[in-house]
């Protein structure tokens, strides 16, 4: 089946209905394995046991940025190709991305207090992630304010593409500015700087969270398609009654 076949919402629903339970099961299994590895992971020589917070913080950051990346591609799909599922994807991804960005900010603060001595500092990395969270809230507000989905989709698409500028700022903020936040330690040129005893559980937890993200995204997209069908039926009923 070509990827373009998924553009049909009915076909997407059929595929999502069969895939979501399997993905859900796989996610539970991945979390069970990931959490067991996180518990067994040794303490870091500098961070001590608080390194276990990284098993939540890093996936949160990754998925917060991934969701906006998906929304940006969807924005192009809405504005350029008018792909039927593009704005459905963008709308479904926004609250999930916001939630993971929030998780990143909260877990980062809870790590920062014992390690840096403060919950928050206005350095470039933290501030640019906070900006991403506020952008998510803005996008969600536009979706909720504009009733006509296609009009809302165009407004959101423009806001999303403008907001995409924040992604490279987040990624390279630790290189461009002198920040309290540490530099890249996983996704960097050369090998990761983390010891395998901590890197492996981190990657397993990141995989588990990514599976959860995909499952939630598919489920939220399915909900959005159903919501639009309800809207169509409501309009149909109103036009017949009128």
């Amino acid at each position: 089946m070509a990827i373009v076949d998924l553009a049909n919402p009915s076909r997407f629903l059929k595929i999502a209905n069969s895939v979501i339970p399997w993905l859900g099961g796989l996610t539970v299994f991945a979390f069970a394995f990931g959490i067991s590895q996180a518990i067994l992971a040794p303490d870091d020589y500098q961070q001590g046991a608080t390194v276990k917070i990284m098993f939540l913080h890093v996936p949160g950051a990754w998925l917060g940025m991934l969701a906006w990346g998906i929304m940006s591609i969807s924005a192009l799909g809405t504005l350029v190709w008018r792909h039927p599922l593009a704005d459905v994807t963008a709308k479904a991804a926004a609250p999930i991305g916001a939630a993971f960005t929030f998780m990143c900010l909260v877990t980062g603060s809870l790590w920062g207090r014992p390690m840096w001595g403060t919950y928050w500092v206005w350095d470039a990395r933290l501030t640019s992630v906070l900006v991403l969270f506020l952008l998510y809230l803005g996008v969600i507000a536009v979706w909720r304010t504009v009733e006509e989905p296609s009009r809302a989709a165009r407004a959101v698409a423009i806001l999303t593409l403008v907001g995409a500028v924040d992604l490279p700022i987040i990624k390279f903020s630790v290189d461009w500015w002198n920040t309290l936040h540490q530099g890249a330690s996983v996704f960097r040129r050369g090998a990761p700087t983390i010891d395998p005893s901590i890197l492996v559980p981190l990657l397993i937890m990141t995989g588990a969270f990514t599976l959860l993200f995909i499952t939630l995204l598919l489920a939220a997209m399915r909900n959005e398609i159903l919501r639009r069908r309800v809207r169509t039926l409501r309009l149909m009923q109103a036009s017949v009654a009128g």
Partner: protein
Amino acid sequence: MEDGNHLLFIVAAYGAAGGVVAALIAWVMLDYRTQSAKLAQFESKGIVRGIAGQAAAIREASKDA
């Protein structure tokens, strides 16, 4: 800072993350239930999507009139 104090931060972080994940799962499941129930309500009234559905709805409305 002592390890005991660190444990509080670790537990709080896992609690917050668990809360976020639980909220997301609950949101998706409740929304699915709500939308499915609304669609079923329309179907029970004989209002369905597509040209055939529209024709049926119009027939139904003209019967009532």
